[in-house]
């Protein structure tokens, strides 16, 4: 497990990270969400040792992250980066060797990976001669070529067509399945909501919420229900243990202290007749996000 503990970072006189702490669990996909400028990229750079924190530590299973462990993280920066005029297989071999693989193994892995990502017949083309989608695949290969023990990806899905999103996703899931912790940032909340096991929401350099989707929902919503009847639903206001959030004719949204209170509202509604709908309300993460980063 990778643990960030109390990370601060200051650029000049501006403090961009305040006491950032969260965990990235092995075998799980952790989404890192925040508005532009919230501190995602800085946090990731510190995690990779590209930047030094002003305070705080990055740990692995309780001990400070070693340089050896760091060298085994696969990283994909937000601004994609590979050499435009160098054949992609050579670039992958170069990166793998800088990560400690010997030249022969590096080449074998590079070719395997390109094959797997559908670039087998383009393996000796220069990056700039590839289409954008294929460049993106080469970029993913660059993060995976040294057989990473963990993955950190900055906005891996931005600018991708739906096909490429699926390909990328499949690869990331495969890595997570081997027990590697995977962290990726995104500002596309719907994507994150669909893909992530865990979620870290950052706003203005502070962690606003962290945990599983369910944890975050539970922490940021009191349970709500929605009832639709044919008649006027104003009577719900007088029900015991219930508070109305929104009322419009036959439709009402209310919170209840417990399930029993909600059930009582339903039985009353059935007695009055004309129930069209009754269901718990799930708040979309987007709504929670808007609320916590404010």
């Amino acid at each position: 497990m990778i643990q960030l503990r109390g990370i601060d970072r200051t650029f000049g006189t501006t403090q961009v990270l305040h006491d950032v702490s969260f965990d990235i669990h092995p075998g799980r996909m952790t989404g890192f969400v925040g508005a532009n400028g919230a501190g995602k990229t800085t946090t990731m750079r510190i995690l990779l040792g590209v930047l030094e924190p002003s305070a705080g530590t990055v740990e692995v299973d309780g001990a400070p992250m070693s340089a050896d462990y760091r060298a085994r993280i696969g990283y994909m920066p937000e601004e994609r980066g590979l050499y435009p005029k160098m054949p992609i297989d050579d670039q992958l071999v170069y990166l793998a060797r800088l990560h400690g693989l010997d030249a022969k193994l590096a080449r074998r892995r590079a070719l395997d990976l390109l094959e797997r990502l559908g670039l087998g017949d383009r393996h000796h083309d220069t990056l700039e001669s590839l289409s954008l989608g294929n460049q993106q695949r080469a970029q993913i290969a660059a993060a995976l070529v040294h057989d990473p023990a963990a993955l950190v990806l900055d906005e891996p899905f931005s600018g991708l067509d739906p096909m490429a999103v699926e390909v990328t996703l499949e690869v990331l899931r495969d890595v997570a399945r081997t027990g590697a912790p995977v962290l990726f940032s995104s500002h596309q909340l719907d994507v994150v909501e669909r893909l992530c096991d865990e979620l870290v929401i950052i706003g203005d350099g502070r962690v606003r919420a962290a945990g599983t989707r369910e944890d975050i929902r539970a922490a940021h919503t009191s349970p709500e229900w929605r009832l639709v009847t044919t008649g006027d639903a104003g009577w719900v206001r007088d029900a015991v243990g219930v508070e109305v959030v929104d009322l419009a004719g036959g439709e009402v949204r209310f919170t209840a202290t417990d399930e029993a209170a909600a059930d009582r509202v339903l039985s009353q509604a059935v007695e009055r007749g004309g129930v069209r709908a009754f269901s718990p309300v799930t708040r979309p993460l987007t709504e929670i996000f808007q609320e916590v980063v404010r």
Partner: protein
Amino acid sequence: MSTASPTGHVHAASRVPFWRAVGIVAQREIMVNLRSKAYLISAAIVLLGALAAVIFSSVGPQLFQSTTTVAVVAQTEQAVSSLPDTEVTVVDDADEARDLVAAEEVDAAVLPGDGPSGILVIGEREAPEGLIGALSLSPEVELLDPSAPNPGILYLISLGFGLVFMMASMSFGYGIAGSVVEEKQTRIVEILLASVPAKALLAGKIIGNSLLAFVQIALIAAVVLIGGAVTDNSVIVDGLGTPIAWFVLLFTVGFVLMASLFAAAAAMVSRSEDLGSTTTPIMMLVMLPYFAIIFFNSNPVALQIMSYVPFSAPVAVPMRAYLGAMEWWEGLLSFGIVLAATALVVTFAGRVYERSLLRTGKPVKLREALR
């Protein structure tokens, strides 16, 4: 798309050791250059240029030597036939000689004259100076230092050292700058920094490019020396061996100095379009020794000063060695100065490089980079 795991059991055991990373980076720098047609072609052109210069300096003077054809009559034949570089045509009388000059079949004619010299020289449009000089009575001349360097040759040699120094520094300096800014512009530098320290990157770039520059300079030196020996060029064979050795030695160290400055300057900008803003001062440093050596190629005091300035020492020391105006230990002192300056500049450049590498946007100010 297969569902097989992308991670086999090939985990690299640990982080790459510093010098191994340096080696891998240097290897890439060299390969990229050797695969570039532009690099190979320009290297070949420079070598051919050096070869052409050697051949020209050996064979060239003969091309400009010409014999003067002179028409004479019997009375003047003896006076002219003993002169060097003249070809004598004996004619019957003065009129025939004049006709030959007018028809441009000979360059001049020498006839008996009424003046105090007793000789009349006939030319077509202008007086044939060489012939007149040869026929005149010259005072005796005593040369105190007959082997003193010919200013023309001094100029050519200083031009040669200056040009090679400037061109190699510029082309490889810009090579390094381009490679640094390319990594910054494409952001691959972030991936690289996640696996190796910035200092290893910088060292690899400098070492890779310095090796290439050294090989190119050594090749040029070899072409000049071997070419000189083959064409039996006395200027090269007698006097240039030691100066060239000094040049290669000092250039190799001095190039590391230039290369680290170029790398640091390039790290301060984010786009190759902005390179000019930070590399211009360094260009000046590269060009100054070139002009200085051409102006001061025979001024011993200026040369002495230049040989103790790290930027100009690589051209000034060989020049002094050629003039024989330098003790061997003075060369070593210059070498020591260049070495010390290089160590200092590399440390400074390393700091600037490391701190500017991840900054994007406007060019980084030097003060910010060093803070």
